[in-house]
């Protein structure tokens, strides 16, 4: 029980139904501080719904979800989970700095924190640029910077590397690894399977059910495959 009382995420028998369809079926897992977890699965498998459930913005059908030892949705959790949604969720008609200043203000953070997160995502030289004039990758980095404000103990990142070039992807994964080493629990969804290798632990979703929960090496072993693509296909299609 000692270990579970320190979990960042504690999900027990979580079910979510939408209009009679089961989106998540009996999901259970725990995540400890400092874990870098990859959430993989085909589109429509429930990745986003699971992430939104951890954030408290998804109506749950049954089961229990605790984040940082508090029931999900409780007011004390607001601002303690950094969130980056699919699609950037930034104000396109504000500058980079104005975006960060607003969210930092809501979180009661000092101006220095805005400078810090701009540096982390290498947007300092873009501070005065309107978000609408940024490239897709730069908008993604701004969205990530907002999620990093205040160094929250948990980060939930929904497809943060989609549409980015390989160099930028590599840099972002380095950032995630550094954050995890510093004790942040990082949950990253992706459908780029090679990115799986960056994570110490993988959760594989199929049709709303948790199909696999172990290390990347175990994924290859379980599927009897040498590449993540093949291992993923075999598990998803139920061959392995």
């Amino acid at each position, binding site marked *: 029980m000692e270990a579970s009382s320190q979990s960042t995420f504690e999900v027990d028998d979580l079910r979510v139904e*939408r*209009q009679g369809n089961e989106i998540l079926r009996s999901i259970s897992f725990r995540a400890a501080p400092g874990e870098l977890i990859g959430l993989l699965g085909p589109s429509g498998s429930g990745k986003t719904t699971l992430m939104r459930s951890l*954030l*408290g*913005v*998804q*109506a749950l059908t049954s089961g229990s979800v605790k984040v940082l030892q508090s029931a999900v*949705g409780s*007011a004390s959790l*607001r*601002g303690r*989970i950094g*969130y980056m*949604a699919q*699609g*950037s*969720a*930034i*104000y*396109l*008609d*504000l*500058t980079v700095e*104005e975006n960060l200043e*607003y*969210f930092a*203000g*809501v*979180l009661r953070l000092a101006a220095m924190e805005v400078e810090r997160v701009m540096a982390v995502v290498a947007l300092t030289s873009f501070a005065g640029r*309107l978000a609408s004039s940024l490239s897709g990758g730069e908008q993604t980095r701004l969205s990530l910077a*907002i999620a990093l404000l205040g160094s929250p103990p948990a980060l939930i990142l929904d497809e943060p590397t989609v549409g980015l070039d390989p160099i930028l992807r590599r840099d972002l994964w380095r950032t995630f690894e550094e954050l995890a080493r510093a004790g942040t629990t990082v949950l990253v969804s992706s459908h780029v399977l090679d990115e799986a290798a960056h994570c110490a632990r993988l959760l594989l979703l199929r049709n709303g059910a948790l199909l696999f929960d172990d290390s990347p090496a175990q994924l290859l072993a379980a599927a009897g495959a040498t590449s993540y693509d093949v291992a993923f296909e075999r598990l998803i299609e139920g061959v392995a």
Partner: protein
Amino acid sequence: MSLRRALLTTRRILQQLRHDPRTIGLLLLVPSALVGLLAWSLTNDPGAFDSIGPRLLGVFPLVVMFLVTSVITLRERSVGTLERLFTLPLTKAEFVAGYAIAFGALAIVQSFLVSVLSYTWYGLAHQGVPWRISVVALCAGLLGTAFGLALSATAHSEFQAVQFMPAFILPQLLLCGLILPVSQLPSALRLLADVLPMTAAVHAIAPFQSNWYYVSQFAIMVGYILVALIVGATTLRRTTK
């Protein structure tokens, strides 16, 4: 509720508009231009602008503010910034108050502009108190904002929000006394018209009424503003299905 977070939101909304000068221009100038057009069109009928003009001062700000508010808040929802805010320590009341204060400030400038232009350039010679007309124009702008916030909570797209305009605004326009005095409407419609916010705006501008009459019309408008803001704040959902 923290006034600080509400005002932060207000500042953010005004910053957004500052980067969009065309919207600000439209917001501030369209009501003035419309009233000017009306004054010009009635040049050959002396006295007509004096009776119709003030009533429209209560109508145009409502329509303009309703449209702008409902689209901008809906965009906040569709882009995902609203969901992000709901994971942060910002309450629904603070969010709605932030919008109400931002657009309330714009409504003040808008109403000031339209009433000053009416009394000077457009040559309005109204038998009422100028400040009352400004306050009615301000209330009308706030009504538009408050209803825009309330209705955008129920709309699912910007397309739907725009369609609330004819469904919500036009019936009020028909019944508010602009076309036919409310007293000449069929009795059932008169009962309805008397409690509509736009009718109160038109009534509050009418000259030669008792103080009690004006107070009651302002009370109706303020009541609607408060109810719509509360509805707007309570229909926002932190969680979705």
